[in-house]
């Protein structure tokens, strides 16, 4: 049951930290979806023409589309990078989507109230398009700063399996890689390709590996994607009513006394590709991000960080 303001729960936040994404099936009403679908061709047209004037159309990993697919009688005013989100799309259907309480609740929980508009894009995959991206992440290699952006992937119409849903690799977001450095990974066990009902929103940590896939269906596939930057430290921005109950201390240790109802339990859950001892480093990275999100500099899972951080203190006992 979501909170009245649709803010995320602590366990949902922990799942985001562990897997790098959350999926909200059909949270956008059909009426909004229909209005957005009427508007997306206009937005796509403006953006694709801008690429053409730069001479880079088709060279930036975006599926080629024809002018016929971008005809619309709608008018769209593009927002500038750096605007507050509340100043973007004041009278457009895209703005209606972004201002839905259930979407605002997700945004506020992860990056705070009224974050910065970074950029957006309309991803159109014509029916039958065999255009396919390599696996990549949308950034230059990150620093050790745990702050993160989010990207909303909004599918205003239903997407059947194999019909151009975005491919992504759960749990890949905390790896420090270059954008196209992961392009050689054609298949990884446990990777997923989105399919689902219209009005579904995927929310990604900006580091999550993903790729556009071919559209084997006969209908065009539309998707709207927006990147948002936080303006505040991302500390306890969600609905923290359950935080005290599930927030474990360092003694929650899988080789000693272990809890199965804690955030730590979620952080121990690995993806099919996260096998072997590599999973220990994943756990450490998740604990570090949770320290940032909760403001608890002593947070730990399975004692890895505490053992090192308290070495001198323990030896003095």
């Amino acid at each position: 049951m979501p909170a009245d303001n649709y803010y995320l729960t602590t366990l949902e936040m922990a799942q985001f930290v562990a897997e790098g994404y959350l999926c909200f099936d059909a949270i956008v009403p059909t009426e909004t979806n229909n209005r957005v679908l009427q508007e997306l061709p206009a937005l796509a047209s403006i953006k694709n023409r801008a690429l053409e004037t730069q001479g880079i159309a088709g060279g930036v990993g975006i599926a080629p589309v024809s002018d016929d697919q971008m005809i619309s009688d709608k008018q769209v005013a593009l927002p500038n990078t750096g605007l507050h989100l509340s100043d973007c799309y004041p009278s457009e259907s895209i703005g209606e989507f972004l201002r839905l309480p259930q979407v605002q609740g997700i945004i506020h929980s992860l990056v705070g109230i009224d974050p910065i508009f970074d950029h957006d894009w309309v991803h159109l995959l014509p029916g039958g398009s065999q255009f396919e991206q390599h696996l990549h992440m949308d950034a230059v290699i990150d620093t050790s700063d745990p702050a993160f952006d989010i990207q909303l992937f909004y599918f205003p119409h239903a997407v059947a399996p194999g019909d151009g849903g975005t491919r992504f690799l759960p749990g890949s977001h905390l790896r420090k890689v270059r954008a196209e450095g992961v392009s050689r990974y054609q298949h990884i066990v446990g990777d997923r390709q989105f399919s689902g009902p219209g009005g579904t929103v995927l929310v990604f940590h900006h580091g999550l590996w993903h790729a556009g896939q071919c559209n084997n269906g006969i209908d065009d596939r539309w998707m709207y994607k927006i990147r948002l930057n936080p303006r505040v430290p991302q500390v306890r921005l969600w609905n923290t009513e359950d935080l005290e109950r599930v927030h474990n201390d360092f003694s929650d240790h899988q080789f000693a006394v272990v809890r199965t109802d804690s955030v730590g339990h979620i952080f121990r859950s690995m993806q099919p590709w996260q096998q072997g001892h590599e999973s220990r480093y994943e756990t450490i990275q998740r604990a570090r991000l949770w320290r940032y999100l909760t403001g608890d500099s002593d947070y730990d899972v399975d004692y890895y960080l505490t053992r090192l951080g308290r070495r001198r203190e323990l030896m003095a006992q």
Partner: protein
Amino acid sequence: MTEKQQVLYLWLAESALDTAVIGWAFYDGTSGDSPTIPLEDPPYKIGTDALKDGWFLIQSPALPMSLPGSEHNISYLPNEFVFERRFTE
């Protein structure tokens, strides 16, 4: 008659060749009539299964060395093994 190469990348769970396949990529330099591999599931359960099926190992991964301060960082899939097999066409 020319020799043509197929290349198989396997990413394994650990640095040992007899551990589980967690990722794979296949590149085919032949005309397309030579044997291929399934795409939906891992072609082999563990790395040594590829040897038994006729693939020749041409590269093992160097073990990662951590720089001070980055001992716990995670990055690319570390256990990348490269295989080839050749066909005469």
